[in-house]
């Protein structure tokens, strides 16, 4: 329990630009992750959540210019030489992608794809790797695992392929798993199975996880902590309870209001008007100002800092929060 005080991953002022004068697509992001903890990065297309995940894995395209710091087990992931990054990747940290169809190599057998990183990082022999791969297939509950070792990805369903991806990622028992929309391409019943499996494996191994998703339902089910992102910035962060029971940022409110409820119908959905502006037209101040019903002159010119509000650790980047106190006149 003592170890829990030191973060496993500590991201400080991470910004990502494509070109020196281009706007930051990820802007001044700071968060940390304790061992065993699940952090959800939530937001819509283009909010920078996937870019953040790629930056941590050292998988950004070469044109991208990251700045800031991302300390992982004492090393800065943003400045680590390629060779050392390769040693970490697939070993201490691993990633699962959205598309189980395209992220497995169609030309290689399942067993070899799982075994590859055992050979690479553990120096295991092929037969040892095969044995470990089989164990892993059983862990992710692939039926008839023995037979599947020699199957090719196209012979498996989408849900099975995502299980294989999880097996590939977890075979070396990483300390950190980054999952980018791991269940978005799957049907709901399969999604529920995969989320339950991930949670179980995570608990067993004490692994920390960053889950990138746009689905607030998934967030409510798996997150310990949440960071809501909009146009490259964290606009609100806190525990899942903070976010869902005491949402503060107007963007968070808009997202929640956009969701139809499973219960009886209660009228029209709230919507967030318009769409995210292109990066070259981000306002100088709060980037949500173009769509926010509460925005005033200050919001357009001044960037609101992430400020503590409500419970400890709950922070929102909004001058108007809490809106019932500061934007009441407008709303009436």
């Amino acid at each position, binding site marked *: 329990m003592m170890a829990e005080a030191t973060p496993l991953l500590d991201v400080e002022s991470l910004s990502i630009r494509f070109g020196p004068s281009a706007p930051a697509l990820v802007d001044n992001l700071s968060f940390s992750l304790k061992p065993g903890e699940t952090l959800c990065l939530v937001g*819509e*297309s283009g909010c920078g959540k996937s870019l953040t995940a790629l930056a941590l894995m050292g998988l950004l395209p070469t044109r991208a210019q990251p700045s800031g710091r991302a300390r992982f087990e004492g090393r800065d992931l943003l400045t680590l030489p390629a060779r050392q990054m390769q040693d970490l990747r697939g070993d201490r940290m691993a990633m699962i992608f959205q598309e189980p169809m395209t992220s497995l190599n169609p030309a290689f057998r399942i067993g070899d794809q799982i075994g590859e990183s055992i050979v690479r990082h553990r120096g295991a022999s092929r037969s040892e790797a095969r044995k470990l791969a089989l164990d892993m297939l059983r862990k992710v509950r692939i*039926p008839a695992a023995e037979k599947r070792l020699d199957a090719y990805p196209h012979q498996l*369903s*989408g849900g*099975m392929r995502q299980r294989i991806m999880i097996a590939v990622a977890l075979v070396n028992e990483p300390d950190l798993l980054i999952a980018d929309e791991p269940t978005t391409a799957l*049907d*709901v*019943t*399969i*999604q*529920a*199975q995969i*989320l*339950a499996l991930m949670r179980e494996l995570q608990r067993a191994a004490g692994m920390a996880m960053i889950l990138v998703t*746009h689905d*607030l*339902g998934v*967030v*409510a*089910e798996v*997150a310990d902590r949440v960071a809501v992102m909009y146009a490259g910035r964290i606009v609100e962060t806190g525990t*899942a*309870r903070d976010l*869902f*029971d*005491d*949402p*503060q940022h*107007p963007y968070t*409110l808009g*997202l*929640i*209001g*956009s*969701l*139809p*409820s*499973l*219960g*009886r*119908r*209660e*009228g*029209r*959905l*709230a*919507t*967030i*008007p318009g*769409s995210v502006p292109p990066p070259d037209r981000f306002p100088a101040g709060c980037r949500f100002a173009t769509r926010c*019903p*509460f925005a005033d002159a200050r919001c357009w010119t001044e960037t609101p800092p992430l400020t503590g509000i409500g419970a400890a650790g709950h922070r929102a980047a909004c001058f108007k929060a*809490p*809106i*019932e106190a500061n*934007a*009441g006149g*407008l*709303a009436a």
Partner: protein
Amino acid sequence: MTADASTDIILDARNLTRYFGGGYRFPFGEMPLIRAVDGVSLSVRRGETFAIVGESGCGKSTLARLILRLIEPTGGSVRFEGREITGTPPEAMRRLRRDMQIIFQDPFGSLNPRMTVGALIGEPLSVHGIASGRERDARVREMLRLVGLRPDHAGRYPHEFSGGQRQRIGIARALATRPRLLIGDEPVSALDVSIRAQVINLLEDLKAQLGLTLILVAHDLAVIRHTSDRIAVMYLGEIVEIADRDSLFETPRHPYTRSLIDAIPVPVPGARAARTLLQGDPPSPAAPPPGCRFHTRCVYAKDICRTDRPALRDIASGHRVACHLAGELQAHTLPAALETVSAARQRRVALFAGAQGIPASNA
């Protein structure tokens, strides 16, 4: 069937079947016969929103295309406003298409990138000889306004628009001929959450404004609950349950419907503490299990389920289910926690919605 004689039925499908594959095809050899839609009957009432839900491969999109006769059925019939359309000759079928239109899932793939938005929306008007020249341009501008775009957008190309705007263009194109029936094949599932809500609201407004009948094909049950009047649940090419919205969600009878509802993640932490998850993948539609097709994944399955195919039968008024055990299963209710949303959340979401002039909404 479900509807009594006095109900105005706009669309009536009887025993619709569509098989794919089968036979020998070089160089693949013997092709498996896929029963994509296998004996589906349903009636859609004028003015309602009828939803067809199910997971990938259940045949819901094939069913939508059969209803419009975009693909030919292997067997069965479809009547639109009392007219049999399955045997209608091509010329008469084309005239009928004015009245029944479809919007597709992918707002990127379904619009020709070389055509301007004006040409895209105007095309059905020319094809059907409804309007040409200035009249057509005026109609295009009217359609653009109707779906919340600007008339001067007519000169632009699809790539200049965001996903949500493109879906609006697709809707304008589908509505240009003033159809009475509109089918949406996953019309919002490719969109971001906030944009999805805009398009859902738009479809609801248009439906009321134009007196449309809407058939929605979707996999997102929360969206379905919000928008539909009646819902049909499909599994492996068959309808397993069909009911009014509230009875389907509040008293689901088929074990598959229950699993589907249970699997949805809900944005309330802790609401889903205990539940049983459906195990395994759906079987291949090329080799559906005998008896009830769901029996391989059903926790209640008995001997009869493995041998006898259950027929769709009335279990309550307007509620039909294809399950041998439906009468015996314990009542299934959504956990109360799904409804418990904090006061702070309710108040602030209402403030957010109110600031835009939207009347009270769900928090």
